[in-house]
């Protein structure tokens, strides 16, 4: 587009001329230029010099009659448009100073002649005239008469005689504005007139030479453009274009057909450019694209004569380039493509036709065509050197060339013959470096496609670009591109395309003596899935690349070449610097093949252990499987298998071959294995199985396999697990026999290249010698014994952990914050084995003891030795606990690198309550104070026990052994509370036990106290029961060692209340059958009120009763009422006395004495008692109860 003249590239702008008053010119031209649409100004300082601006008109060819006119020499005149844009004004404005108008007659006359002169020049053209009187002094008005005189003289309409005020800014602005309006109006009129004039000619000459009609249509279109009438411009450009198309069939018969065609194409190009620009400018992208498509279709085949074909390709290339640039600049094209792609129904438009990239690419394509045909043309014209080409220049018609012949001072244009023209064109063509241009075009296209994320098109452009670079010898740039493209083709499996790319890369590497790259590319090519019967037949390429045909044969050739190089028989014949580059001892070569390398095709190593876990020192099998897709068989000299544990590495040699080099096994004392053959055939696994063992526990992983081929060439191949092996790239699409890397299909599915080596079995016993459940409160001892049975124990460490069995943790974290002893179970300490120094143990060996965790170091033990310690654990709550003890040690004594062996033991220990303490509070025997709270309250709420005031009650405390072991009770006492509240009662019980009492499991120990409330308070605080006990371990020494455990039991507080009535039953301690006795019921009124009580005595079977069964009695305040009954027992034994019921009317409550209290033993006859020691008797009876 840049090579087009400026007047073609931009829309034309109206041109006006201002003459005279040069001081105003800059104002006017700036103003006019800023108008919309702008107006260009041609300024002339002096009215008298106007003839310079407008040369006298030449005789117009249109004046001749059409028939007589000679055929035009060309279609479009080269300078016509430029002339109209820069030289021929539409309007001429004569600026006349007001001084001259109103001045003396001499001035007026001079002015008149100048105006006449101007008029004369304009005559015959339709240029419009405007006269502007410049009034620089706003004060003095020019008289009307004078103005009329000027108007008459200039023969202009009153509208076009303006007064221009320069005095003030506002006036100036106003004047400028008026001037602009008039200019725009007149210019429009001028261009319309001109257009009409030419149109008339077209109509008149419709049968005349087409060339002229094309020219006229072009002119009309240009005039329309001046007027900004785009629609008409477009129409006439199209007319011209179509007419031009009609000229073409006659071209070949003409004398200078080549030049004629060049001219036509040049004109067509201009017309097309105008049309495209107008369409795109109007936002009609789709129309523009369709237009371009038609343009392309109608001219593509118009190649012209064969020797000039490069001109055609050049022209085609330019069409695409220009359209690409046009599309690119019209930004609308890029925004809204997606909804435009519909196209017409029968000829749908495709996506890329809206992309500049598409056109850039094709421009490059045609430029390549041009280059090759130019090269051909140059080679044909080789030899005939013709200097005459130098004097050839573009002639006055667009697309024509002529020879300039100097004739004195003037130059004369002499037409060229086609031969001369061709010589000129070829010599011109030779001046340009097309490949740079091609690369630039492709780069634009490639970048544009890349931005659109159109990878394959971009790659294709890149490929072409790289080929240009390659041809130009710029291998570095080419390699970058080729490598990039190759990865796409590899990924998508386009083998033939990849083959082609690799061919370039391989040749490039060869030329630049890059041995490693050369071998890599060669290997990859040789291993590509190309065979004769894949349907991709051998073809000779149109543009033959260095890869050669994609055939199996070619692969084999490459294979042989590489192996020749590797085995050092051949060198790499580098064309660059002539000398061979070899793989040798000074230039060894090492290739790495990882999991993503394209060279996996060349060598694939799969390694599978036959087991998943082994014991240290025991051996298992490992299978190495190698696969190659190289077309020919080849042999590996030596394989080295590398593991993460380097001592396992081993080397495999070919049994049939002599040792390659003794140095390899000398340097590393690795194991050497032999294989019957290390020969790899195409697509056939080479399977090798060997023993392997490791003494080191942990992961044993095969890292890589290094294949040595030839003395100085190695390939290091990353080992892959069969279970997680990816398919071979490219080959996975081939219809080939797929075999498993191992014979065993299960191993092929699940085999891994890594194995877990277990740690050695411990040869140390760890015993936890605890028995039975632990009792809450005691320090429970768990002896731990470490006994060596074959291993020495070095730097042993014992870890102890207490874990809640139910998983709830040993304490709640909230508790832990509050107090330290909220642990339910606590590891108190670890004591060493007996006889060891305790202090040393404390400082050194117990490293760490926490509430539930302990760490103890174990002294070094020889084989057969043992060591023990004791764990002291205390339970606070009944809770089962898991005790984990683990011993870690190293069996060898040589430093830190040896492995640790671990032994684990665990034991579940139940924590249980040893003793449960209960108590009972009893009223005095056969004495029943009426306690209102007791009768009224719900009977089951026993926490608020009430006691009558001023009575002596009985407290029985009992302790039961609920463990499974016998316990020794050391003491039982009731202590007051920790806080020093005074005891509000007196407790009397027997003195402490002198000898510890043995309590077998389930046995109960009771102690009786009498309680008398001392103070007149409503509450009685009894205190705590403190019980000291210990396990009864039988022997006396042990009993002494075990610390006594104190168990506390809080006695609840007792309410005191005064009872209004107290009923006492009195009867003899025993009765004798048939012997009557008296049964007194004493009701004591302790209130100040008269109490009414209903009494009722039920009948009893075993007694005969005398006395009233029911009665209502009144008891005076503070007095006692006695009711007596006479009873005669009728049967012997323990008998129930008649039930007595009392209802206190005032409190509307009644009570009955308990059944236990209302029994009496009836002897059949008078017994004979012998009184013995009272104390013993009482104790016995208490215990027996």
């Amino acid at each position: 587009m840049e090579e087009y003249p400026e007047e073609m590239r931009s829309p034309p702008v109206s041109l006006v001329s201002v003459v005279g008053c040069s001081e105003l010119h800059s104002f006017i031209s700036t103003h006019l230029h800023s108008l919309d649409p702008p107006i260009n100004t041609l300024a002339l300082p002096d009215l008298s010099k106007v003839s310079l601006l407008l040369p006298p008109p030449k005789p117009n060819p249109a004046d001749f009659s059409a028939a007589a006119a000679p055929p035009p020499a060309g279609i479009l005149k080269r300078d016509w448009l430029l002339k109209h844009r820069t030289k021929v004004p539409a309007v001429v404005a004569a600026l006349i100073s007001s001084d001259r108008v109103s001045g003396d007659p001499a001035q007026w006359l001079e002015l008149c002649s100048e105006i006449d002169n101007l008029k004369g020049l304009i005559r015959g053209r339709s240029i419009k005239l405007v006269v502007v009187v410049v009034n620089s002094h706003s004060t003095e008005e020019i008289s009307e008469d004078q103005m009329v005189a000027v108007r008459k003289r200039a023969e202009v309409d009153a509208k076009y005689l303006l007064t221009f005020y320069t005095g003030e800014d506002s006036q100036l602005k106003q004047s400028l504005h008026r001037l602009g309006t008039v200019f725009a109006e007149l210019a429009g009129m001028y261009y319309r007139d001109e257009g009409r004039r030419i149109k008339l000619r077209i109509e008149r000459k419709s049968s005349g030479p087409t060339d002229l009609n094309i020219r006229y249509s072009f002119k009309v279109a240009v005039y329309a453009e001046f007027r900004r009438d785009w629609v008409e411009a477009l129409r006439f450009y199209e007319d011209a274009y179509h007419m031009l198309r009609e000229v073409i069939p006659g071209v070949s018969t003409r004398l200078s057909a080549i030049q004629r065609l060049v001219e036509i194409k040049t004109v067509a190009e201009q017309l097309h450019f105008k049309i495209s620009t107008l369409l795109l400018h109007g936002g009609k992208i789709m129309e523009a694209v369709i237009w371009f498509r038609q343009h392309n279709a109608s001219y593509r085949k118009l190649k012209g004569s064969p020797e000039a074909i490069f001109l055609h390709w050049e022209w085609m290339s330019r069409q695409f380039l220009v359209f690409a640039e046009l599309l690119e600049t019209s930004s609308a094209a890029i925004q809204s493509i997606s909804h435009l792609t519909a196209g017409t129904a029968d000829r749908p438009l495709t996506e890329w036709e809206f992309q500049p990239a598409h056109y850039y690419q094709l421009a490059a394509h045609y430029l390549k065509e041009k280059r090759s045909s130019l090269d051909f043309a140059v080679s044909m014209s080789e030899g005939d050197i013709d200097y005459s080409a130098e004097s050839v220049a573009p002639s006055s018609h667009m697309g024509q060339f002529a020879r300039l012949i100097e004739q004195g001072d003037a130059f004369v244009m002499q037409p060229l013959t086609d031969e001369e023209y061709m010589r000129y064109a070829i010599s011109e063509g030779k001046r340009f470096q097309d490949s740079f241009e091609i690369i630039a075009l492709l780069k634009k296209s490639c970048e544009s496609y890349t931005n659109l994320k159109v990878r394959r098109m971009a790659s294709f452009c890149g490929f072409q670009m790289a080929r240009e670079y390659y041809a130009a010898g710029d291998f570095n740039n080419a390699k970058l591109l080729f490598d990039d493209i190759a990865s796409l083709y590899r990924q998508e499996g386009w083998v033939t395309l990849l083959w082609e790319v690799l061919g370039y890369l391989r040749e490039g590497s060869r030329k630049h003596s890059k041995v490693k790259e050369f071998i890599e590319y060669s290997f990859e090519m040789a291993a590509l899935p190309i065979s004769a019967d894949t349907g991709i037949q051998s073809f000779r390429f149109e543009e033959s690349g260095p890869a050669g045909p994609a055939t199996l044969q070619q692969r084999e050739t490459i294979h042989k070449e590489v192996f020749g190089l590797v085995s050092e028989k051949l060198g790499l014949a580098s064309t660059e610097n002539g000398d061979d580059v070899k793989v040798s001892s000074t230039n060894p070569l090492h290739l790495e093949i990882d999991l993503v390398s394209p060279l996996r095709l060349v060598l694939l190593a799969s390694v599978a252990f036959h087991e998943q876990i082994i014991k240290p020192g025991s051996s298992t099998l490992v299978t190495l499987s190698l696969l190659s897709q190289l077309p020919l068989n080849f042999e590996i000299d030596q394989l080295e298998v590398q593991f993460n544990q380097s001592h396992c590495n081993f080397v495999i040699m070919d049994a049939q071959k002599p040792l390659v080099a003794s140095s390899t096994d000398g340097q590393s004392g690795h194991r050497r294995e032999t294989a019957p053959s290390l020969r790899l055939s195409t697509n056939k696994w080479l399977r090798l199985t060997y023993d392997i063992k490791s003494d080191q526990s942990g992961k044993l992983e095969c890292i890589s396999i290094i294949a040595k081929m030839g003395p100085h060439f190695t390939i290091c191949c990353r080992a892959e697990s069969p279970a997680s092996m990816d398919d071979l790239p490219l080959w996975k699409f081939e219809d080939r026999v797929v075999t498993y890397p191992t014979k065993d299909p299960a191993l092929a599915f699940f085999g891994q290249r890594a194995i877990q080596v277990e740690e050695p079995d411990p040869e140390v016993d760890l015993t936890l010698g605890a028995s039975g459940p632990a009792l809450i409160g005691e320090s429970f001892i768990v002896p731990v014994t470490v006994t060596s049975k074959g291993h020495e124990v070095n730097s042993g460490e014992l870890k102890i952990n207490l874990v809640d069995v139910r998983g709830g943790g040993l304490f709640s974290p909230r508790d832990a914050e509050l107090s330290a002893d909220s642990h339910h179970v606590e590891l108190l300490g670890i004591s060493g084995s007996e006889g060891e120094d305790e202090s040393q143990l404390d400082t050194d060996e117990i490293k760490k003891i926490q509430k539930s965790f302990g760490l103890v170091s174990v002294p070094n033990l020889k084989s057969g030795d043992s060591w023990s310690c004791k764990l002291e654990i205390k339970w606070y709550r009944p809770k089962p606990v898991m005790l984990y003890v683990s011993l870690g040690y190293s069996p060898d004594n040589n430093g830190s690198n040896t492995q640790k062996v671990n032994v684990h033991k665990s034991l579940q220990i139940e924590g249980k309550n040893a003793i449960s303490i209960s108590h009972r509070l009893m009223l005095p025997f056969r004495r029943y104070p009426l306690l209102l709270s007791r009768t009224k309250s719900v009977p089951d709420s026993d926490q608020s026990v009430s006691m009558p005031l001023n009575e002596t009650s009985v407290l029985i405390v009992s302790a039961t052994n609920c463990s499974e072991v016998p316990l020794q009770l050391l003491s039982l006492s009731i202590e007051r509370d920790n806080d020093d509240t005074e005891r509000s009662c007196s407790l009397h019980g027997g003195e402490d036990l002198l000898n510890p009492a043995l309590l077998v499991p389930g046995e109960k120990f009771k102690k009786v106290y009498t309680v008398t409330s001392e103070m007149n308070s409503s509450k009685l605080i009894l205190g705590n029961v403190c019980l000291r006990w210990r396990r009864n371990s039988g022997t006396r020494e042990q009993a002494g060692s075990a610390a006594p455990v104190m168990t506390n039991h809080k006695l609840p507080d007792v309410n005191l209340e005064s009872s209004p009535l107290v009923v006492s039953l009195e009867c003899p301690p025993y009765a004798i059958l048939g012997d009557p006795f008296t049964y007194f019921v004493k009701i004591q009124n302790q209130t100040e009120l008269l109490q009414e009580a209903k009494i009722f005595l039920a009948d009893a079977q075993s007694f005969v009763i005398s006395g009233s069964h029911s009665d209502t009695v009144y008891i005076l305040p503070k007095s006692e009422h006695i009711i007596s009954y006479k009873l005669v027992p009728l049967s012997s034994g323990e008998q129930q006395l008649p039930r007595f019921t009392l209802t206190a009317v005032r409190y509307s409550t009644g009570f009955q004495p308990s059944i236990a209290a209302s029994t009496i033993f009836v002897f059949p006859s008078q017994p004979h008692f012998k009184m013995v020691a009272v104390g013993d008797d009482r104790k016995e009876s208490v215990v027996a109860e």
Partner: protein
Amino acid sequence: MIVCVAVVGHQNNPLYIQSFTDADDALKLHHIVHCSLDVVDERVNNPKKSGPTLNETFLGLLYPTENYKVYGYLTNTKVKFILVTTDLDVKDADVRNFFRRFHAGYVDAISNPFHEPGKKITSKTFAEKVSTIVKSFGFSSTG
């Protein structure tokens, strides 16, 4: 004249590609087929709103090169068929018909129990069938 037909698999890998020219432009045709996949992607990812039928298997003209026209077809199973022809005036109906028959041939070929899904089609029967279809292209526009 049809110059090239191709079957392209899920990973945009060629499953079958056959050219029918005497000229030595097989590589060029491979490039053309490969590049046409971009348009297939574009069409599938940004379906035209005003297209004939949404999600029709026939994708229409993919792109015109200077000498060829490239048509595309995408099966429900995301296998692409590409047709390259030198005919400048091609009826859509012809192309549709071609693809329909081609698809049938393809289905028969891959229904062979010895054919592994996703691998190249090497069946000779398929190749013969394709060449028959290619030869009859344009003559059976009534179908």
